[in-house]
């Protein structure tokens, strides 16, 4: 566990200001993520987890505080994001969607083709490469999103509840597929979810956030050996206790935010 620090987040705060009315989405977030670590951020809805991710993705500017992503090469982009359900671009074919990041960087055609085909195969979409997303199911679309992010080969991956809109069975399947692709590349991942099961299955460390303003209240290591399966997580007694502990925390937070 003594990997170098890949992402260091220092005192990030984001305030949304509207007509004399301000909302503090996140407050004083300080977090270090190690190289190759898979971190899940779990919190009640509206706790600013997405805001945190959007700041890391350079889609939102922090009100104060800084963060940095370590990089030792110019070739890789710093980060790529896997968006929630609608992130696939409908007017690009499956193949063009997966190649999107690579094409935006204007890399050599041959390299783009190889990289795209590799990840299309990884997520089982080779047969559908020429189709438009409208012809695919929700699960297939999220596979495109995942392939697009991995194909871009960034320093770190950011995932914003990518499986939230899927049905339970598809969710399990995609979670295990994600783990298998991830274990090959060992990318550093920050994954946002509100599903405790998902966090326990995927992550090395779970970061719990409080309701508005979003602050880090607890960090939980998940020592379960990899490769993991959903069955193992469900059958493991320690994990069951963790589940209940996290659940209790979330309930408290929800109660607090109601008062």
């Amino acid at each position: 566990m003594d990997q170098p620090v890949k992402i260091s987040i220092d005192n990030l705060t984001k305030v949304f200001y509207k007509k004399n009315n301000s909302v503090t989405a996140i407050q004083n977030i300080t977090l270090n993520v190690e190289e190759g670590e898979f971190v899940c951020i779990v919190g009640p809805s509206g706790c600013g987890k997405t805001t945190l991710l959007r700041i890391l993705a350079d889609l939102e500017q922090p009100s104060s505080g800084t963060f940095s992503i370590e990089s030792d090469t110019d070739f890789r982009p710093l980060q790529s994001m896997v968006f929630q359900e609608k992130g696939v671009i409908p007017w690009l074919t499956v193949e063009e969607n997966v190649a999107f990041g690579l094409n935006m960087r204007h890399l050599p055609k041959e390299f783009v083709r190889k990289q795209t085909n590799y990840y299309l195969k990884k997520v089982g979409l080779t047969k559908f490469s020429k189709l438009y997303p409208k012809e695919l199911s929700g699960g297939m679309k999220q596979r495109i999103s995942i392939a697009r992010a991995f194909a871009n080969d960034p320093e770190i991956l950011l995932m914003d509840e990518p499986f939230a809109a899927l049905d339970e069975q598809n969710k399990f399947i995609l979670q295990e597929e994600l783990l298998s692709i991830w274990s090959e590349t060992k990318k550093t991942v920050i994954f946002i979810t509100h599903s405790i099961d998902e966090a326990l299955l995927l992550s090395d460390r779970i970061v719990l956030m409080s309701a508005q303003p979003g602050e880090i209240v607890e960090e939980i290591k998940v020592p379960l050996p990899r490769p993991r399966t959903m069955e193992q997580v469900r059958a493991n007694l320690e994990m069951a206790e963790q589940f209940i502990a996290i659940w209790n925390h979330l309930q408290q937070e929800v109660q607090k935010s109601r008062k």
Partner: protein
Amino acid sequence: MHEEKEGKLYNPYEMEQQEWKKRQVKERGKQLLTIISPIFILLLWEICSRTGVLDIRFFPPPSAIVSTFFELMTSGLLWTHISVSLYRIAAGFLLGVIPGIIIGLLMGLYAPIRHFISPIVMAFMPIPTLALLPIIIILFGIGDFSKVVTIAGSVFFPVVINTVAGVLNIEKVHLDVAKNYGASPTDFFLRIAFPGALPVMLEGIQMGQAIALLTIVAAEMMGATSGIGYLIWTSYKAFMLKEMFVGLILISFFGFMFSLLLRGLQRKIIPWR
């Protein structure tokens, strides 16, 4: 699974097959109705004007109109009118659509441009281009170009407004994707803004096409010496109603053809819809 019903043997598969066939027959029936309806109207018209229910002086029977059409066609006169009008429509259409798309995209993408141009568009839009025809004639003369400008003017507005709406309707997450994956301004324009705005933009172009036809006829009635509108107007004034009807039916025919053409085009350029 077989089931005995009124002494006959049914199975679910056959039942559904029968149902499917019935639905197919119904579908075909509906298509038939669509084809029959114009024929029915023409027949009714023919019968009414031949039996004197309709005054034959004002409503000549379709058969007479058709023969007038062929007479005009062989004399070459009609062909001149048609080609002149089609040229004006095509040129005016392009002259309205192309700036409409460009200005619409710029307005959609850049808020300052949108805020600056919007009031100008809003101010000019309610004025029918036809009401500006006198000014257009003063500026551009009574030649072809003034008709082209008139059409361009009326096509421009629906295209601009729909293009802006098209850009503004692009899902925010697609803009985020483009930004997150490092799209350059050019790539953003070509890969996200333009294709994203295309469906709504094409609806504006469809509207523009319909307006172009409305405009050409009226524009040719004032200060023109040729064209389908001119044919309709002079035939009416000379009480040559058969010739007038030829003009009217031609307009209807071209309107129909253009919509079919654009709809076909739409399917071609937005296969992802």
